[in-house]
């Protein structure tokens, strides 16, 4: 799973969101590190919709335009859960190794 896909699925966990809502939520979740462009967002979104991980929740009129809200499916939730566990396992592995390799002089991790 790519990092943008991971953040998009995470952004949709708590509530359905429209296109720009996802962009804003991803920026906030990643503390500004992941700034999705619209082309990148829809490049990922159409794959997630195609894979059945995201689906349309509703359409709402806003300032003369139609906003589509997207929500996470059960399949998307499972995929995100699996990816989160994989990343957590990787992080645990690295942390354990870092703790084991302490600097012999200072006693701090080298």
């Amino acid at each position, binding site marked *: 799973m790519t990092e943008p896909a991971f953040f998009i699925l995470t952004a949709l966990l708590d509530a359905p969101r*429209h296109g*720009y809502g996802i962009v804003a939520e991803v920026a906030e979740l990643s503390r500004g590190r992941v700034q999705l462009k*619209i*082309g990148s967002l829809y*490049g990922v979104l*159409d794959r997630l919709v195609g894979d059945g991980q995201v*689906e*349309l929740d509703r359409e709402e009129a806003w300032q003369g*335009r139609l*906003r589509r809200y997207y929500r996470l499916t059960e399949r998307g939730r499972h995929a995100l859960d699996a990816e989160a566990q994989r990343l957590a396992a990787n992080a645990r592995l690295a942390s354990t190794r870092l703790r084991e390799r302490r600097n012999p002089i200072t006693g701090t991790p080298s």
Partner: protein
Amino acid sequence: MSRLEERYRFVLRLLPAAYRQEWEDDMVAAFLDSMDTGDSETTAYVTDYGRPSLSEVASIVSLAVRLRLGGADAPPRSYAWGQAVRLATLMAMLTHAVMITTSIAVTLWLSGKIAWLPAPASEWTITPPSSIWHTAWNLAGYAWLPAYIALVLGHRRVAQAVALLAVVPPAITTAVQQAGDVPLSVSSWAMLLIDVVLLLAMAAFHHGAPPVPRRPWLLALPVGVLLVPVPLFTIQATTPALRLLDWPGLSCAAVTAAMVIHLTVRVSRRPRNLPWSLALTLLAVTTLAQRTATLPDYSDQAQHTTLATIASVQAIAVLAVGVPLAVLAIRALRRLPPIPATQRPTTPTE
């Protein structure tokens, strides 16, 4: 519709029509939301005079490349075009790498560094460059070799960055020379234009693209050196008449030979042939355009009638083999299902 929306929709026309049909309005809504500054006056100004940023345009271009030149999981037509562009790019890069490798070997031979080969004739001695700066500048063209290897090994961005080193110095040299007293020549600009197209075509090696089979493409480098430039150099050294074969002419000959071989073997390997047919068609169109565009350069040469006749024969040869191949490729392409609209996100019934 505001000017900003018009401009953004114009950029979105890069995307396939079926994709736009499903996603365009939503993308426009999201984009306009992203341009909302929160202050009504500023937002009104931006919607009248603003333009999509370069990074926004780049994200659309990248999406368009991914959709039109698809990877293994793309619809068949998109995948066929994607593979065709990737194969054509690899073949063009391989040609550069082969010629550069030969050029390095010839330079070493002429400067007496390859002792086991017979010494070159006295009229072939190379003139040493006037400064280290000139030497470095001339070496820039050699960057095609590492660029090709990087592309085959799957490092697309490295390949593009290295290839840029091979394109920029010759462009500056040509511009400076032609601004001075060197007569204007189409050939050098045509070759640079092709190199720039090649640089851009590397974008087809995106994340979704299948990896390049390393062994055959790496093996193609020494095989290519032994099959084309070495015999050609030897023949031209002994038969002065063949020195009339210039770079566009050599490209025509190589592409025609490749197309003939492809047409001969395609009967037995039909299913895998379409991307190769399209790739060779793309190369045939490029070489034909290069051959035609460089014809005016012959006008001030002593043997211009002979050269123009040879060039016409080369162009006819490319057309004679390229047109039937293109017809076969287009027919095969039409038999494939078109690029479908992506699954429309439908509202599920609660």
